């Protein structure tokens, strides 16, 4: 216990993730939150991408963390811990959705053709959008809204690959689909979001100041 407290109170955060995992695997469960804290946001986002309901996503995120704790001894060091957590979360979320009332509707959506080519629509002259744009809440909200308009199968792949940073194979494994499907869906998701962002680009979402387009705030 003293050892655990010493670890928890270590302000320099010098314990490696590997060491933390080993401690928890040896039974120091009180260290588990320290271990998962860096990933809690990603775990929530993964659950939300699948469930689209904040309350369910939070509950599933918590359930997934409890499950991860219960199975921590099965974690093998050759895997990335964050990926392992997210895969558990995706699995929990998919199970929750299957049990939910929308399972039939979601199933119909899943079988739609995805092989058709997607043609980009907007060819405005782009430049790099600075990441500082994300400091503005309305920009983040617009991006989140654009993402929410995607069909489930595109949204899930996009979130796991581009937001959760799983690789293509891990994304395929987490969702139980083929690598080819991941690539096809990812391409389409990125192109669709690009078109949606292009609209925002024209509407000035990414301007540094809201009155840059000529409208004065007073």
């Amino acid at each position, binding site marked *: 216990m003293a050892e655990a407290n010493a670890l928890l109170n270590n302000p320099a955060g010098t314990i490696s993730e590997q060491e933390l995992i080993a401690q928890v695997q040896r039974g120091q*469960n*009180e260290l*588990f*939150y320290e271990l*998962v*804290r860096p990933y*809690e*946001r*990603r775990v*929530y*986002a993964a659950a939300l991408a699948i469930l689209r309901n*904040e309350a369910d996503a*939070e509950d599933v*995120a*918590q359930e997934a*963390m*409890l499950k991860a*704790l219960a199975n921590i001894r099965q974690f093998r060091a050759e895997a990335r811990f964050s990926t392992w957590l997210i895969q558990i979360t995706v699995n929990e979320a998919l199970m929750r959705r299957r049990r939910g009332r929308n399972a039939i509707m979601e199933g119909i959506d899943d079988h739609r053709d995805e092989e058709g*080519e*997607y*043609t*980009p629509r*907007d*060819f*405005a*002259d*782009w*430049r*790099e*959008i600075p*990441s500082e*744009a*994300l*400091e503005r809440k309305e920009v*983040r909200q617009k*991006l*989140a809204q654009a*993402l929410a308009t995607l069909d489930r199968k595109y949204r899930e792949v*996009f979130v796991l690959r*581009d*937001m959760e*940073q799983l690789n*293509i194979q891990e994304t395929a494994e987490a969702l139980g689909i083929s690598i080819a499907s991941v*690539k096809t869906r*990812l*391409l389409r998701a*990125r*192109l669709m*979001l*690009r*078109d949606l*962002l*292009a609209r925002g*680009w024209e509407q000035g979402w990414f301007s540094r100041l809201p009155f840059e387009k000529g409208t004065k705030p007073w």
Partner: protein
Amino acid sequence: MVNPEAVNCEQVWREISNYLEGDVDAGLRAAMDTHFRTCARCKSVLEGTSNVVRLYGDERMIEVPAGFGRRLERRLARSRRVRSNWATWSSWMIPVAAMLLMAGGLKVASSRTVPHPLLSAHAQPAHGIPPDMAVVVSSGAKEFHVVGCEFIHNKDKERTLTAREAEREGYVPCVRCMRKYLETASAGKIALDSEADAVADAGEERVPGGR
């Protein structure tokens, strides 16, 4: 090798995601790079798509509800307490239970008159029955009854005792007479009804997965 001249816009759009992934071979990459230098439309698609990947990949794009971390930490702590309580409880309770079972076994071996702790596998201990109420049991049966119940078997071997004693000996309430008794016993009929239902339900076969 892909001939740079042969890559048209449609092919570029089809491969643009793989290009961003670094998942195209050197020939195709070179062909696409050449294409981007000369085609403003495809350059626009590339830059827009790069923006998408970069912006959505930013940590700030993930927003969690206020208090999310605190609630997660609390739930983890709660589960630890439950586990720890169980561990503490089981660490002494299991040996104690084992000793009790052994002692019980010895006693059963020495005296055949002591019944099994739970005579009916389907029943649960009764609730709502006054502990000092006089009830009737008969040897070889599993239930205790209101005096005069017509469902008492082996009437010649019946004996009277209190409900508390009957329960202690492992007898469970008769679903017929005890239910009727509980229903009419007091003004709190509705409350007792649910108890009696529970008693009646306890006598039924449980469906796997049922509530």
